[in-house]
């Protein structure tokens, strides 16, 4: 991954210089365009509402103001609740999902497992044919009775066929001889999996765990479908969605801070909420991104 194709001894001719110039310019511009929108949101969240009304959103606050944040934090109940719900779903969902995905992935690549092709196809077929949204919605709400229950968000996100296939590819690189010799020593399949295989697959577990965790952290779809306004604390992204799409939501929380209706910072509060909801995760991002890169590479090459 690290070293690129080396050509030190060859002189730089015009074509090299052209390619490098295009490369550095294009990549710089694109990388910048990936960062700027976040700065727009951040800048706007720190601007006074009156300045936004006059000059629009901006990257650099013309009139600095922390008013939007003040209101967000004065009634922290909602956002603290949202954080708690999302952290809870992420931790539980990732742990349970990871265990199941790892176990299934391991079993499905064991050459001596006689049902492995049947089970693999059973799982894979779900990516080819689906019942669609309406029957799924009826199943969750009318048959499993999970409406307004956090399980309706937790359960559907536990695993995907893609993650199981990725785990399979990872485990395949561990020689089957390890399993075999442990079996000769009298170890059962569960013991082999827990004691031998799991410790050897930590990079895979990290990658798959991060995919799961990212899925739960950014989850808004099932929350929107299955959690009604009756639910006291909604997951973070649904909370953000409500703040963005319904001005009543902002007006309510401003009213709790005794802010008169005409002074409610409608626009800047959307941005401030987005920053509060996303900022802390952004700090994690540089630490974890290399695990994703690893996972995508393995998944793409062998999946």
């Amino acid at each position, binding site marked *: 991954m*690290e070293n*690129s194709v080396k*050509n030190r001894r*060859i002189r730089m*001719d015009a074509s*090299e210089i*052209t*390619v*490098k110039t295009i490369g*550095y310019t294009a*990549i710089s511009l*694109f*990388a910048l365009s*990936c960062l700027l929108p*976040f700065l*727009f949101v951040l800048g*706007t969240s720190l601007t006074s509402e009156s300045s936004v009304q006059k*000059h*629009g959103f901006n990257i650099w606050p013309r009139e600095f103001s922390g008013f939007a944040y003040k209101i967000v934090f004065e009634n922290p109940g909602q956002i603290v609740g949202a954080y708690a719900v999302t952290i809870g779903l992420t931790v539980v969902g990732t742990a349970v999902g990871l265990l*199941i995905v790892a*176990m*299934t992935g*391991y079993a499905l690549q064991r*050459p*001596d*497992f006689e*049902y492995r*092709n049947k089970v693999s*196809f*059973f*799982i*894979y077929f779900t990516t*080819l*044919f*689906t*019942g*669609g*949204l*309406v*029957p799924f919605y*009826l*199943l969750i709400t009318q048959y499993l009775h999970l409406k307004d229950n956090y399980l309706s968000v937790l*359960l559907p996100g536990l695993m995907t066929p893609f993650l*199981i296939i990725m785990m399979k590819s990872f485990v395949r690189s561990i020689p089957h001889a390890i399993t075999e010799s442990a079996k000769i020593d009298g170890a059962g399949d*569960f013991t082999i*999996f827990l004691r031998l295989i799991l410790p050897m697959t930590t990079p895979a577990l990290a990658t798959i765990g991060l995919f799961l965790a990212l899925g739960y952290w*950014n989850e*808004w*779809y099932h929350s929107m479908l299955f959690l009604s306004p009756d639910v006291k604390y909604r997951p973070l*992204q649904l909370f*953000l*969605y409500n703040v*963005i*799409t319904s001005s009543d939501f902002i007006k309510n929380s401003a009213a709790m801070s005794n802010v008169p209706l005409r002074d409610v910072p409608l626009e800047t509060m959307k941005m401030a909420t*987005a920053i509060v909801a996303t900022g802390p995760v952004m700090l994690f*991002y540089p630490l974890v*991104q290399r695990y994703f890169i690893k996972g*995508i590479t393995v998944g*793409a*090459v062998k999946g």
Partner: protein
Amino acid sequence: MDSLHPSLPAQPKRSGFQRLMRNRSLLLMCLPAIVFFLIFAYLPMPGLYLAFINYNYTDGIFRSQFVGFDNFRFLVITGDLWRLTFNTIAYNIAFILLGNVVQIAVAILLNEMRAKWFKKTAQTLMFLPYFISAVLVGLIAYNILSYDYGVLNSILQSLGFDKAKVYSNPNVWPFIIVLTYLWQSTGYGSIVYFAAIMGMDHEMIEAAQIDGANAFQRIRHIILPWLKPTFVILLLFSLGGILRGNFGLFFNLVGASNSSLFPTTDIIETYVFRALMTNFNFSMGSAVSMYQSVFGFLVVLTANWLVKKVSPDNSLF
């Protein structure tokens, strides 16, 4: 194949039950996943029966009137089915083709750079949009495109142009949606191609350089042909999903009820969502889902048949 382990001697045929017992612990390991997919993926499938009835809530599934293919006929007559199919496929073709071209370009250019810190920083930044939720993508688009306060209109005004009414002009949305898609997926997608370039035989490139190949020739005649198989495989794989839409992207960019934009932005997923949550027309939503699943399945079979011809090792089944 269920071949026995080679080291074992040929064994007499055993009953299914013995086979089950022999594999019980591995089967047990798969059980949670089997139950999961059984409940959340297989149980809803018979629900597609909704597409053939005129579902109403009081009669429920079994006593609602059976109407055969009337729902499909309605979708064809109103033109909805054609519009949804066209939008979904056209967007996906744009996503697949432009997406891969941009990803390949980024991977090749990254490979040409020598400054390590630059490569690292650029990759980290380009990967960033992949990490954020669809909801935040929607807010960012609003931040830029809003009529009253958007950054775009601030820039347009300062340059002396009129403000653009983006959220009521359906014609610009194909560009916005495709650009947003590229913005979000390029960093992620280019990793695959970058890894493929890293896996190249470097001697090949050095030999070409000694023979006097310049940078363009190196890219054109060595790197691009090397990436071709990866490109073809990824292309065919994504062909299989050509009828599946990215609901989060469309829904959060366009909004649930901005119907003036629907002619150019409505895809199968958004239509089904509205049928369920806004219009409560369960049967019509199911009919569209049914059409999507069946048509999509045929496309996958075709794509797989093509993969088999191009590269048998990569075929799905």
